[in-house]
C-alpha cells in the first residue's frame, strides 16, 4: 500500500505533465490563429492588402488546436459521460460501475485505433498523390501530421487510462 502511493503520485504527475504538454502544443496554434486573423483584418482595413492564404493557414492551425489537445482530453478524463446508471448499479464507486468504465475505455481505445489506422491510410494516399491546397499550394500532408499525431497520441492516452488503476492519495 505504502509502496504504491508514490507510484500513483508520480503517475498523476506524469499524466498531468503530458496533458499540459498537449495543451500547450494546442494553445500555441490557437494563439497564432487569433493573431493571424487579426493581422489579416488589420492589413485589409488599413492598407487594403489582406494576407494571402489566411484561410488555409487558419485551417491548418485549427487542425493543430483540436488534434494536439485530443490526447489531453483522455489523460484528463474530461469526456462528457451520462452517469445516471450509477445509482442503479451500486453507486459511483461500485464494481459494476468500474466494469462499465473499463468496457467504455476498451471501446475508446479500439475506436481511436481504427480512426488512426484509417487516418494513416488517407494521409499516405494524400502524400502519394502530392495533394496540395488551392491557394498557397501547401502540401496536404502538413494538415495530416497534427491529425495523425493527435489520433495516435489519443490511442496511447486512452490505453493509459484503461490500464492505469488509480490509487487513493
Amino acid at each position: 500500500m505504502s509502496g504504491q502511493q508514490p507510484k500513483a503520485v508520480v503517475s498523476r504527475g506524469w499524466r498531468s505533465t503530458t496533458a499540459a504538454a498537449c495543451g500547450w502544443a494546442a494553445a500555441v496554434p490557437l494563439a497564432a490563429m487569433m493573431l493571424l486573423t487579426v493581422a489579416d483584418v488589420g492589413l485589409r482595413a488599413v492598407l487594403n492588402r489582406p494576407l494571402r492564404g489566411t484561410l488555409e493557414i487558419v485551417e491548418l492551425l485549427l487542425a493543430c488546436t483540436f488534434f494536439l489537445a485530443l490526447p489531453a482530453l483522455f489523460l484528463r478524463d474530461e469526456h462528457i459521460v451520462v452517469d445516471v446508471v450509477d445509482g442503479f448499479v451500486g453507486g459511483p464507486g461500485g464494481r459494476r460501475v468500474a466494469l462499465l468504465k473499463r468496457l467504455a475505455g476498451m471501446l475508446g481505445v479500439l475506436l481511436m485505433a481504427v480512426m488512426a489506422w484509417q487516418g494513416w491510410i488517407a494521409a499516405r494516399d494524400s502524400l502519394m498523390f502530392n495533394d496540395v491546397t488551392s491557394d498557397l499550394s501547401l502540401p496536404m500532408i502538413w494538415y495530416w501530421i497534427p491529425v495523425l499525431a493527435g489520433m495516435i497520441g489519443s490511442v496511447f492516452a486512452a490505453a493509459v487510462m484503461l490500464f492505469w488503476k488509480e490509487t487513493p492519495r
Partner: protein
Amino acid sequence: MSVLAIGILGVVGLLVLIFARVPIAIALAASGLCGYAALDGWAKALKMFGSVPFNLASAYSLSVIPLFILMGAVASRANMARELFEASNAIFSGIRGALASATIGACAAFGSICGSSIATAAAFSKVSIPEMRRYGYDAGFAAGAVASAGTLGILIPPSVMLAVYSIVAEQSLARLFAAAMVPGIVLAVLYVITVTLVARLRPDLMPKAPSLSFAQRLRAARSLWKLALLFFLAVVGIYLGWFSPTEAAAVSAFAAIVIAFATRHMDWRGLADALLDTVYATARLFFIVVGAFVFARFIVLTQFPNEVARWVLATGVGPAWILLAVTALYVLLGTFLDEVSTILITVPVTLPLITGIGFDGVWFGIFVTVMCTIGLISPPTGMTVFVIQAQHPNIPVARIYLGTLPFLAADFVLVGLLIAVPQLVSWLPGLLKI
C-alpha cells in the same frame, strides 16, 4: 433487414451505449460507424471514418468556436464579471431583489461577450452569491438565480451553442445571432419579472439592500465601455460587414486580451490559463462534433429523419401536438444530456419534422437553444447547478434546484411565446436584411 430497421437499431444502440457510461463522442462514433457498415459495407464505412475527423477539424467555419471560447475565458479571468455586476447593481439598486435582478442583468450582458453558460455561471457564482448572502438572501434562491441567469450565456449572441447548431443544421451563423437577440433579451426581462414577483410573494427570501448614491452608480457604470466595445466587435461588426464570424471572434478575443492587460486585470499566467482552458474545452466539444458527424452520415444514409417526418405528418397530427412532443423530448433529454450532445444528436432528426410543419431552421435553432437553457437547470444533471454547487459546497443541490423553479417557469413562458409569436425570432434578421 430494412434500411429503416437498421436506422432504428442504430439509434437504440447509441442510447444503450450512452446509458452504459460510454463517453458520448465515442458512443456516437461507434454506433455511426457500425450502422454505416451495416448499410454500405465496412470498406466504405472505414473510409468515411478516416476522413470525417480530418475534414471537420480543418474546416474554416469551425474556427469561430475556439476563438469565441477564448474571448469568454479571458473575460471570465479579467474581473469583467464583477464590474458588470456592479454596473448592473447600479441600475437596480434600491428595489427589493435588486441584487438578484442585477445578477440577471449582468449575466445577460456577460452573455454578450461570452458564449458559454458554464463560464457565465462560474464567473457570477463567485461574484454574486457572496454579495447576495451578505445582505441576507436565501442561499437556495441566490444560487438558483445565478444558475438560471447563467443560462443566458448560450442564448445571447455570440453563442458557442448557436455556432454548433449552425454547423449541424447548415444555417447562417450571422442570421442565428441576430435571431437570438430578441428572445435573449425577453428571457432576461422574464427573469427580472420573476425576481420581482418572488420578492412580492416571499420578501423574506431577499431583504432590501441599501441604495447606492448617484456618484456610486455613475462610477459603477463607467466600466461598461469594455462590454460595449467587445460586443461591438464580436456581434455588431458582423452586421456592419466588417468581419466574418471567425474574424469577429478573433478580433474580439484579441481585444479582450488587450483590455485585460491594459487594465491590469490579467497577467501572462492568466493568459496561459485562459488559453489552456480554451483548448481543453475545444477538444471536448470538437470530439463530440466528430462523433456526431460520423453518426449523422449513417443517419442520412438511412433516410431515418425524413421517414420519421413523413410518418408523423402522415398521421395527421396537428402542428401544436408535434411541437408539444418535440418540447417534451427536449425537456426529457435535458435531464441527462449536455446541451451540445442534445443538439448534435437530435437536430438531424427533429429539424425535418419542424420544417415540415412550417417553421424554419433559424427559428428552430433558437427554440432548441432555449430548450437547452431549461436542460441546464433541470434535475438531475443541470450543469450550471453543478458548477455553482462545486464553488459553494455548503448550499445543497436540492436547494439550488428549488431556487431555479421560478426561473424554469419563465423559461417555459418564453417557449410559449416563441411558438405563439415566431416574429420574436424573425423580426431582427428581417430588419437587418440577412
